Every structure is written in C-alpha cells, then in structure tokens.
C-alpha cells in the first residue's frame, strides 16, 4: 500500500489548507509539512521498489487490473516521482519564504497542492484516462496559479496556456477514443499487450498520432511551444520553477511510455520525428534564450532547448541514450527550478518587481551568495564540469557516439554552446553591471535554490547513484513484458 501516501498526502492537503485559509502561517506550515511527508513517502516507495526489484501496484477498489484503476510505482514512475517531489518540496520551501503577494492569497496553497497531486498522479497512474484526468488537474491548477500572479500579464499568459492545453486535452481524448474503439481497454498494460498482438487495428496509428501531439504540446516541444515562454515568465516564482522543471516533464514521461511500453517496437516514424524536433528545439531554444530581455523568459526558452536534448535521447532509443535522457530529465529539473527561483529572488530585490534585465541589472551587487548560486546553476545548465549538467550532456553525447548519430550530435553540440553565452551574459548583467538605483533590499529567501544547487553540485561530483538508478530504470523499460506481467499477473 506504499503507493498511496505520496499521492494522498498532497491531495489531503487541498481541502485542509482550504479550511485553514484564514490562518496564513498554519496554512503555509501545514502545506510544507505535507509536502515533506510526501517526499519521505516517495523515498520509502523508492526503497521498496529497489529492494524488492518489483513495482508496487495498487488496484483501487480491489477491482482486478484491466477493469479497475491501477496505480503503479514501477521504476520509471518512481524515478520521475523522486524528481518531482524533491523539486516540489523545494518549491514549497521557497513559497514559505516568498515576499510575493500571491502567496498571501487564501487559495494559493490549495492550488499549489493540487498541482503537486496532479504531478504525482500523472506519474503513478497505470491507466490512460486517469492520466488524462491528472493532466487536467495540473493544467487547471497551474493556469489558476498563473492567473493570480503578481505579474500584470499573468491573466493573459494563463488564458493562452489554458486554451492550448484544453486543445491538447481534446487530442488526448481523441487518442483515448481511438485506442478504446480498436482495443476496448485503457489500462496501459492491457493496451500494450493488445497492441503488440494486433498492431494494425483501424485507428491505432491515429491514436498514436493524437497521443504524440498531446505529449508534445504538454512538453512544449518546438512547434508547439508558443505559449511556454509567456506562461513560465508570468507565473509566480515558486510556481514557475515547478512549471518549467516538472510540468513539461509530463510530456517527456508520456513520450517515454508511448515509445517503450504502449507502442514498443511499433512506433514507425515517431523516433525520427522526436530527434528532428529535439534538434530544432535545441537550436531554437538556445537562440531564443540568447535573444530575450528578461531573466525568467530566458530560462523558459532554455527549457525548450533542454527538452530537445531529452527528446533526442528518447528518439535514439538505445538503452544508453534512454538512460541519458532520464539523467538529463532529473538534473534539468533540479537546475532549472533553482535558476528560476534565483531569477525570481533577484526580481523581488529589484526596485520594481520584474525579472526584466533593465530592472534587475546590478541588483546582485549586494547579494554575492545568490550570485555564486546563479553562476553554479548556469554552469550546470551549460554543462560545465563538475556540475550535474556536465554528466547529463556527457551521457547524451556518449550515447550519440555509440549510436553513430554524428549529424544531430554535431548540431546539438554546437547549439548547446549558446547556453554558455546567455547564462554568462545574464550573470554579468545582474551581478557585475553598475546600477545606481539598486539598493540593498530584503527579498525571497534563498534556502530552496541553495538546496537544489547543492544537490546538483553533489550529483555532479558523485553522479554514480543517479546514473546507476537511470540504468536500472532503462533495463526495466527495455522489456515491456515486465511491466505488463507486474500488473496483469
């Protein structure tokens, strides 16, 4: 039964924090406690999965597998869950020390916990329709949180995101319908079995196309990304750190499930499409980030580029490149969340609250500690040793060499150098340029980004545990029958 606590703790927090809406301090402390407890539960779940070597599965209402709703913590789910809960816990710590007006609103913590519930559920569910429901929970809570942001344009950004995401949900439902009419089931394990038995049922490829489109929109992959920089830049800092590091990973997770489980071996052109979109995303995101005038927007564009690396890893599809994509996913979540928090913390210390370079220029003069963190995070983003970003890029490049994919490799190698340019440029702008208007000012606390940067430094110096874990997950993904057997028995 250890699957349920990581999901139920934040879910329980939603009504509880809503009841405590008048008692701000208790509400915030309760939300933080619940999230830390959920992180503890996730670690316990990880320990169980690793020691038994088998996924932990719960059939809700004790309906047996193809009929009921399955929650399963298989190695991939537990890997993503560990990443999500580490970053979410840091996000709640940041929100507790944030000076933004939005964290004072009574509905902030209930919505934030709903976002956490949605993320947890999306990774844990073993059923396509439940995945749709949890994805909707993420979309609605994320859009509502952005709509009430301090940023004046939060409402517009939320509208844009919500509109596009609703269309993505429409595609998701179409995909679900197409697969249900062909195979009569929505349980991932059952569906994977039936697709493997008869891959040429009438609407199978339509279902694959719809689901791919959904996950590409959710992951803000290149041609579907136009909402993403606006949305991530306008969201409240604590939330934007989650959106840019975790919410887009639901798309990556979905694509991993499509290619390694549901349509394992029947994906047709999909891997090549992913590689092409990934490479274009790396180029476009890199140059987009270099061209912006706002620190948060720059980091949002950078997410576009980093998602590109993960897609390339998934597209190559060799065991090593999948492991590299997983390591990249994990490391990117830590670093991107920390960087967005630092950009937001600097914006909160500026004269006017904005992350625009015109405003935050020179603000860092009085905050050298934040500068050290930002530089470390930026170097991790660019993939400079000894930080964790180096390990992720090394693995991607190494897997590309092994798969003999030299052309995409060369392109993303060159394009990833742009990262160094924009990171260093923003660092110099915020910490070294003179600005007479910048004054020492208290702002958001730096505990959360410090924790995340320490973690990424640690995972850069001693990367073996994470890489070993990713390889364990990849071994598991390599044989879809393991997943199917663990659920259908």
């Amino acid at each position, binding site marked *: 039964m250890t699957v349920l606590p990581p999901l139920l703790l934040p879910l329980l927090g939603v009504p509880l924090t809503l009841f405590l809406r008048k008692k701000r301090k208790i509400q915030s402390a309760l939300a933080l406690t619940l999230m830390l407890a959920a992180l503890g539960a996730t670690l316990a779940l990880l320990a169980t999965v690793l020691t038994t070597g088998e996924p932990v599965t719960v059939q809700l209402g004790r309906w047996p597998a193809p009929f009921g709703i399955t929650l399963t913590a298989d190695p991939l789910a537990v890997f993503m869950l560990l990443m999500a809960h580490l970053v979410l816990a840091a996000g709640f710590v940041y929100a507790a020390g944030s000076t933004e007006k939005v964290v004072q609103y009574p509905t902030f913590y209930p919505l934030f916990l709903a976002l956490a519930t949605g993320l947890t559920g999306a990774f844990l569910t073993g059923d396509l329709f439940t995945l749709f*429901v949890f994805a909707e929970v993420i979309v609605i809570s994320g859009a*509502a949180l952005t709509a009430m942001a301090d940023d004046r*344009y939060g*409402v*517009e950004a939320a*509208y844009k995101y919500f509109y596009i995401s609703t269309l993505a*949900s429409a595609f998701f*439902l179409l995909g679900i319908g197409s697969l*249900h009419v062909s195979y*009569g089931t929505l349980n991932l394990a059952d569906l994977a079995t039936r697709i493997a038995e008869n891959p040429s049922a009438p609407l199978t490829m339509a279902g694959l196309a719809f689901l791919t489109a959904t996950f590409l929109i959710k992951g803000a992959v290149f041609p579907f990304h136009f909402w993403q920089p606006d949305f991530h830049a306008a969201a409240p800092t604590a939330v934007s750190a989650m959106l840019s590091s975790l919410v887009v990973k639901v798309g990556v997770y979905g694509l991993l499930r499509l290619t390694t489980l549901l349509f394992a071996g029947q994906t047709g052109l999909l891997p090549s499409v992913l590689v092409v979109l990934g490479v274009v995303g790396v180029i476009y995101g890199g140059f987009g980030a270099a061209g912006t005038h706002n620190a948060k927007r720059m980091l949002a564009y950078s997410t576009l580029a980093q998602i590109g690396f993960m897609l390339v890893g998934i597209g190559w599809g060799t065991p090593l490149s999948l492991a590299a994509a997983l390591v990249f996913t994990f490391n990117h979540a830590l670093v991107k969340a920390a960087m967005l928090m630092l950009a937001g913390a600097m914006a909160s210390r500026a004269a006017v609250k904005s992350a625009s370079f015109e405003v935050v220029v020179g603000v860092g003069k009085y905050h050298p500690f934040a500068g050290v963190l930002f530089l470390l995070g930026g170097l991790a983003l660019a993939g400079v040793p000894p930080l964790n970003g180096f390990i992720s890029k090394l693995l991607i490049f190494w897997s590309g060499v092994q798969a003999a994919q030299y052309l995409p490799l060369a392109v993303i190698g060159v394009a990833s150098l742009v990262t160094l340019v924009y990171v260093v440029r923003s660092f110099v702008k915020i910490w070294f340029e003179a600005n007479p208007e910048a004054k020492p000012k208290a702002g958001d606390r730096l505990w959360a980004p410090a924790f995340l940067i320490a973690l990424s430094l640690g995972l850069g110096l001693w990367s073996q545990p994470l890489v070993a874990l990713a390889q364990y997950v990849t071994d598991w993904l390599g044989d879809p029958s393991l997943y199917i057997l663990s659920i259908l028995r």
Partner: protein
Amino acid sequence: MNLLTALAIGLLFAAGIFQILRRNLIRAAIGLVLISNAINLFLFSVGAYNGIAAAYANATGQISDPLPQALVLTAIVISMGGFAFVLSLLYVISTRYKTSDSDQVTGLKN
C-alpha cells in the same frame, strides 16, 4: 444512423475549428466548447453501437459498452469547468483591454 452520427460529429468539429481560427476571443472560446462537445460525442459513439441494452446485471440482449459513457461524464464535467474558467479569464482580459479582438490584446508582446 452510424453515417449520420459521424457526419454530425464531423460538422460540429469543423464548426469548432472554424470558430477557433477567428480573431475574436469569445468566438474562439465558443469554438473550444464546440470541439469538446464534438469529442464527447465521438467518445460516446465509441461504445454506442455494439448493443442497445443498458449494462444492468441480468440484462438481456447485447449490452452496450458502459465505459465510454463513464468517460464522457468525466470529460463533460472537466470541459464545463474549463469553459467556465476560460470565460472568467476572458472577462478579466476584455475589461482590461476594452476589446475581445485578439490582435489588440498585446500585453505579452512587450
């Protein structure tokens, strides 16, 4: 009947897509509703024509698949909530800009 349903759903879909491509944000929101209803009907028709008896215990005749009906119920609730949310966002936007023309809602461009 099958053909008629398929045509109706297709028509609804086409109308929705046409509305989505309009510049007026309110029309676009209505297009969203048309599309989500078209999809609900599609999802419903996935299980509609296998049988006509409802899925009671001891039902006689060929039972229709009850799962799509349950899915549609969930999807209807979600799309209704989503539509209400879109309209409330639109309300804020249109009072702020005094227009619902998407070309004039340009706050994010700067």
